[in-house]
């Protein structure tokens, strides 16, 4: 299953809720303000822990827009929109944590 998180980990609890519920082997893609979780900072810790059991992606166009592409932490795979589409196609279930 693919989880989609579009919220900043500093502003909202959406990522926390996703990580609490996500099952080992699930995939997670960070988009929009959610990409801040993929970068260095206090929000990175929880993601790094999660990377042990989840496959984690972040949308490169959203990282670039925010000027933080160079700040991405290890363990996160960058994808473009085509990659986002592939992730949706390759997982029978997806869920947006709005």
């Amino acid at each position, binding site marked *: 299953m693919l989880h989609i998180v579009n919220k900043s980990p500093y502003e909202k609890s959406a990522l926390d*809720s996703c990580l609490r519920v996500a099952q080992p082997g699930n995939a997670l893609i960070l988009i929009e303000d959610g990409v801040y979780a993929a970068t260095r900072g206090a929000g990175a810790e929880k993601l790094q822990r999660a990377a042990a059991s989840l496959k984690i992606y972040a949308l490169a166009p959203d990282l670039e827009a925010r000027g933080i592409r160079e700040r991405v932490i290890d363990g996160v795979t960058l994808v473009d929109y085509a990659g986002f589409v592939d992730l949706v196609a390759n997982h029978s*279930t997806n869920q947006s944590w709005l």
Partner: protein
Amino acid sequence: MEEGQQSGGKVKKFMFLNRKAPYGTVYALESLEVVLITATFDQDVSVVFMDDGVFELVKGQNTKAIEMKNFSPTYRALDGYDVEKLFVERESMEARGLTEADLLVPVEVLSSAEMGQLMAEQDVVLSF
């Protein structure tokens, strides 16, 4: 559109995921409207309340002084629409100091892990 070709007899698992408190935003109310319509399509419907969505089910809502419509009685009516699978995540409920006795309707309480498994079994998850 060629969609008509695929219809007929197919039953999918639909999950409606409610994570927002009522009245502060309209999502809880408009989510209920979707649940009621989808119920008429004879699909396998689950309605989930987690995070602040658990607050949607709190008893004793009285919207008189904010002059909005109190839509919480509708949760009691879901049963009549054959929407019988209501789930609450235990961690969300307990963090908010709530117990099942505080809720308007009978629900099945799931752990976070059980909730994650239930989600992964769905065909469609509509989140609000």
